[in-house]
């Protein structure tokens, strides 16, 4: 019984994390800060939710499958974030003039 309550608390925490991520996506004013913030907060929410579900379920094939999903997500989520940021960068999306000018001057 105690593990179910703990798991539900973890799920609630993950929802709070993801809500903050969505809030940041909706309110920030430039693309790069959105990318940086969401990549973090979303992964934290995902891991917390999966841990919560594993606590509720106990040790069974269900939670082993959840572990498998967690491993795949940890491998693939940074790849997609990186490829989006890389695509924006190579297409010429820059943030600020000064940083670029300093870099080319040195």
């Amino acid at each position, binding site marked *: 019984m105690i593990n179910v309550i703990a798991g539900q608390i973890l799920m609630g925490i993950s929802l709070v994390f993801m809500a903050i991520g969505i809030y940041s996506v909706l309110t920030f*004013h*430039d693309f790069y800060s959105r990318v940086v913030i969401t990549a973090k907060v979303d992964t934290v929410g995902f891991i917390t939710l999966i841990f919560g579900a594993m606590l509720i379920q106990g040790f069974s094939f269900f939670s082993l499958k959840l572990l498998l999903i967690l491993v795949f997500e940890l491998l693939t989520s940074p790849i997609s974030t990186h490829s989006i940021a890389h695509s924006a960068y190579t297409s*010429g999306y*820059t943030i*600020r003039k000064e940083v670029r000018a300093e870099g080319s001057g040195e």
Partner: protein
Amino acid sequence: MTEAILLLLLVLLAIIAVETQILRMAVIFLGIFSLLLSFLYLYYGAPDVAIAEAVMASGLVTLLYLTALKRHRVYTICFTNEMFREVDDRYIIEGTRRGQLLREIEQFCISKELEPQIICTPEDLSLLLEKRSYDLIIRQEGDQLTVYGNQDNYFVDELEMLIIMRYQDLNCKFIRYDEELTLHEEAS
């Protein structure tokens, strides 16, 4: 509650995906559409259909549409404004909304079966010219709008006609440049 929200979103996304004129965005909308659709299949108790939808939507259909879209050339338009030093949403929205010119060029591209892509950057003109990856550069200084087009480009004549005809009374110039990056200002 969940069901109602997802069904409404499904209708909304379908309408947007049909209505949008830029085809690459339609691919993204369709991707989200099939994600939601797959979850709804699952919700209504058809996991086998859901798994088929998952595989097709995220792998096959995206690949198919993108391969089909390769026939459309991407026409990259670079917009730069001297007044701003940082790029954020306000810069992009104001820059693209305020100028009627960008709208018109976009419409022109769609009518020529090109995919318009607008990139906003605060960098200097010489840097942009050296990169050579843009088909058209639009520069704004105060009220003055200047359009730089590559001479070898196929559509540059028609674009020049359009801009000179429409915007003769406004502060708008069209300048061509060639391979050695020398600028040819039109005398006529």
